[in-house]
């Protein structure tokens, strides 16, 4: 694509869809539209959905497409500015102080100058958020704020501030403002509601499990050695399994793993023994395995083979 380095200049949803496909991600119309709008309007995109439907993957693929770095913040409870934005390199600062002292530069009158030197950019450790904002050359970075629902309210409020005007102030140095705002993807598993203000700032898309036809395509894309026939059966079996009412319905990544495992065993189509041997790649709870067995594995596979 001629303008692939500046995704902000994409001119249609179809173009986004094609570019994501070229980078090995098959979006549905809803996701493609949401990504298109996020690029054009320079807004963060909030993706919610079941675990394993490929929310995080969107950011990775966007970074590949744009060619910029992927800057990832994995949120957890207690994450704070020092882990997400910046920190001073205290060990080096201390060392610098000792050197200054040893060489006699740290005389009383020069204390102020010394302080200024200590809070210089060379002692600044940039964490992903600052990195994304201060970025000033080359393709725009993709900032992935993963599982924002795990962070606490205070961090979310801080995030809102940064995402509102794409600038960060460090008291000792000054304000960094983004020359070119990064592409921002925020994901949430919905363990709690993300604050309304943050949601309003973002475009929103609820990511679902793919429909069968698209899942077949996804399997073939990520496990090219799997036969067409097996891919189709795996996809329809996975769709059927999701209907059984499991604790953890398999996500796309599990389906891909399952197809790969079956393929490694030389399967050309779903057969009970191989399926039983490889089921743990698809189902991660013993109760879920039992439930599928109780539900009638034979019948499920027979239906998938049709």
């Amino acid at each position, binding site marked *: 694509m001629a303008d692939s380095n500046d995704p902000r200049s994409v001119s*249609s*949803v179809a173009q986004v869809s094609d570019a994501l496909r070229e980078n090995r991600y098959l979006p549905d*119309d*809803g996701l*493609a*539209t*949401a990504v*298109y*709008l996020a690029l*054009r*309007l320079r*807004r963060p995109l*909030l993706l*919610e959905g079941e*675990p394993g439907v490929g929310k995080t993957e969107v950011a990775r693929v966007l970074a590949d497409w744009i060619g910029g770095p992927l800057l990832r913040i994995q949120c*957890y*409870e*207690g994450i*704070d500015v*020092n882990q997400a934005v910046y*920190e*001073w390199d*205290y*060990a080096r*600062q*201390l060392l610098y*102080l*000792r050197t*200054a*002292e040893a060489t006699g530069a*740290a005389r*009383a009158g020069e*204390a102020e100058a*010394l*302080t200024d030197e*200590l809070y210089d950019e060379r002692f600044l450790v940039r964490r992903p958020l600052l990195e994304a904002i201060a970025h000033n050359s080359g393709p725009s970075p993709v900032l992935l704020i993963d599982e924002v*629902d*795990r962070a606490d309210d205070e961090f979310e409020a801080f995030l809102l501030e940064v995402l509102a005007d794409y600038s960060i102030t460090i008291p000792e140095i000054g304000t960094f403002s983004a020359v070119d705002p990064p592409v921002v993807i925020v994901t949430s*598993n*919905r*363990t*709690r*509601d993300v604050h*309304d203000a943050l*949601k*309003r*700032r973002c*475009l*929103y*898309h*609820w990511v*679902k*499990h793919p*429909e069968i036809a698209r899942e077949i395509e996804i399997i073939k894309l990520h496990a090219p050695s799997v036969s067409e026939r097996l891919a189709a059966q795996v996809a329809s079996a996975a769709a059927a399994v999701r209907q059984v009412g499991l*604790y953890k319905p398999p996500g796309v990544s599990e389906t891909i793993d399952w197809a790969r495992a079956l393929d490694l065993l030389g399967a050309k189509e779903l057969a009970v023994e191989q399926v039983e041997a490889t089921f743990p790649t698809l189902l991660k709870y*013993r*109760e879920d395995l*039992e439930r599928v067995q109780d539900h009638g594995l034979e019948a499920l596979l027979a239906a998938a083979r049709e």
Partner: protein
Amino acid sequence: MTVAAAVGFVESVRRGGIAVSLGSSRLFTEALAEIDLGNPDEVYWTARAVLVHRPEDIELFNGLFAAYWCGVDSGLVWRPPQEPSPVTLALDDPEIPADGPDEDDNRDKNDDSITVRYSTTETLTQKDFADYSDEELAESRRLMEEILFMGSCRRSRRRVPSRRARGALDIRRTVRQALRSAGEPAEIARAVPGSQQRRLVLLLDVSGSMEPYARALIGFVHASVASGARVEAFTLGTRLTRLTRELSQRDPDRALQAASRAVKDWSGGTRLGDGLGRFNDEWGCRGMARGATVVILSDGWDRGEPQEMEIQMQRLARVAHRVVWVNPLKASPGYEPLARAMAAALPFVDDFVEGHCLDSLHELARLVLGGSDGRSPERDLALSGVGSQR
């Protein structure tokens, strides 16, 4: 399609019951300028990405979208995308009256225990919720606000400065202090792990048999959510309803009004096991119940299968820090947990307490806040054993 039409659509979405901020409505107009307006799907997905922020609103939105665009612009043919059909819980057998179980329980009104009445407050604290008059109910709401109902504390990852010489080196603070003494790190600053309040998840049974208690307990749940502590609230009946948003406004009247609008199955039947299952699937096991104190306020009457109850309680107990079951009937003399669901759930419950009067709620709050550090050994036994019985 014109800007006016778009503004009109946003207006109809608002009237339809989806909150749209001014910013989102402006963003919608901006977004429309970027897309192909001749493509109804693109218009739909754009509107959805900008105006809808919760999966619960998607269905409603689809209806509003179809009604508006296919009505105004007759040339537009559009069908909502295929969504997985929502799971609905089966209704109860209509032959059993909703308040059936209450007839079996011969709760004798324990008035003889309150012989001296000093004041209304004094009387209220031990009076059974089921015997409350409307005035007493209103009075109790005020008293409930005084109960400090929040989760216990646990160690957090975040560290806080330590005054004494213990804990790990806090280099950040050490350097700051060194600057004061011209770069000489005279004092070594240290930090110790801080503490964080555990999330508290309240599941209130609003079925017919619980009705006399639920009307009082909902006030308790509100007071707790509105206190600003980390509290989540749900109701269980024939379905699961999340009430955290509705109850987080401070004014009890408005909060309870919003709650009663949201809860569609008030005083209906009970599917405790199924409701818990939905909670586990959609919220609990995803993370909300993880490490949290989960409090179930229910009399344990359930029309579903006890096995389902057992399975769901087991799942809940596996992720929760502590499971507390509050049963208002427990206070009645000679109470035995005979209800099948109650019996199935008990092995997974750490604390089984009463909740029939204000005093017992004070007791509950103390228990939850104090947070006994051990899980009950019976529960651990149940968790390791039951799985193999399935």
